[in-house]
């Protein structure tokens, strides 16, 4: 594969990545069977309940099944404020999930820290792990969450999730052989 990898940026992996039919098929399967690990910490959890509850019903999108073991889940929903004390736990949960995995930052606290800018609130979960979709709102409305889920599905289908890209990049580097990169 005559690629010259001059950089290891994730965006380039996306550029080089060509989806095979198999990729497309497996990504189609992945996007409709998301197993969620709800990392619920705070107020957003109430809205997460509503999303999972009868009226908004996340089951319509194939993501209703919360798995409380990170090893069995592929979507990490960070629901609520992440604090410095929580950071190691979050990172550990993320590390325990198997590839491919995706992350949604649910609410403004998980995205940027929101109006908690202080010594203990982390300014966004992306300080410690990569995030695929950010949902604004304090807390977001359930409709926003469903919208974010659909956005994530698009991303999964096109193979542009963080972990998909990272896998692709590693693959490309391996194919390019030693001495490159």
């Amino acid at each position, binding site marked *: 594969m005559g690629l010259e990898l001059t950089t290891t940026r994730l965006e380039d992996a996306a550029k080089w990545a060509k989806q095979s039919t198999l990729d497309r098929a497996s990504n189609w399967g992945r996007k409709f069977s998301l197993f969620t690990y709800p990392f619920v910490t705070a107020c957003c959890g109430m809205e997460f309940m509503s999303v999972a509850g009868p009226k908004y019903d996340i089951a319509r999108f194939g993501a209703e099944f919360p798995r409380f073991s990170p090893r069995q889940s592929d979507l990490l929903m960070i629901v609520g404020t992440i604090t*410095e*004390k929580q*950071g*190691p736990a979050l*990172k550990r949960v993320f590390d325990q999930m198997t590839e491919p995995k995706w992350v949604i930052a649910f609410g403004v606290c998980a995205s940027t820290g929101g109006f908690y*800018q*202080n*010594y*203990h609130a*982390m300014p966004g979960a992306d*300080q*410690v792990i*990569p995030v695929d979709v950010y949902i604004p709102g304090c807390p977001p409305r359930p409709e926003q969450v469903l919208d974010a889920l659909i956005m994530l599905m698009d991303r999964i289908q096109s193979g542009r999730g963080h972990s998909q890209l990272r896998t692709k990049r590693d693959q490309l580097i391996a194919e390019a052989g030693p001495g490159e990169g």
Partner: protein
Amino acid sequence: MSAKVLDALKAAHGAAIDSVETQHGDAIAWVVRDRLLAVATWLKSDPAMAFDAPVFATCIDRLDWKPIDVPPGPPVYPASAGWTEDRPRFEVVYQLRSTRHRHRLRLKCAVPEHDARVPSLSSLWPAFNWQERETFDMYGISFDGHPDQRRIYLYDEFVGYPLRKDYPKEKRQPLVRRDDLPINPIKVPGGHR
């Protein structure tokens, strides 16, 4: 009702009480630090007081206390006498309630910065166990005789006491190294003093 409690307290423990005041109907008694445990024991056991229920314990850091727009006339705050520039920096506050008499009382203890200790009341009211740990965690007040004085909200690696007025609000002490982040020089707010 609050006046009755304060009068009884003064009558029984005159020497241990620095001063008493009432603010917005809340009874407040300033207790000499060394006598706090004795006064509290009496408050709990005396049938006329019967402060059986603890409400909260906390601390006030008066580091930059400069009340403004104070109405003219004698100072409304603090009403207790003897307050000058070299006043103690901290005030430890205990709020008590009596289920029988329904009265409430706030005990205050002046605590200087260089000797930030008070006797623990957790042996009298178990609820103060965690409340005092919280006060220790946030203000660095040490409670003599506390069975388990550890940080409660923050982690052991945390340096300093965040609710002190001189702790910068946004001074974070991360537990997870942020390697993947774009390089931001981590600055210590306030710089070199």
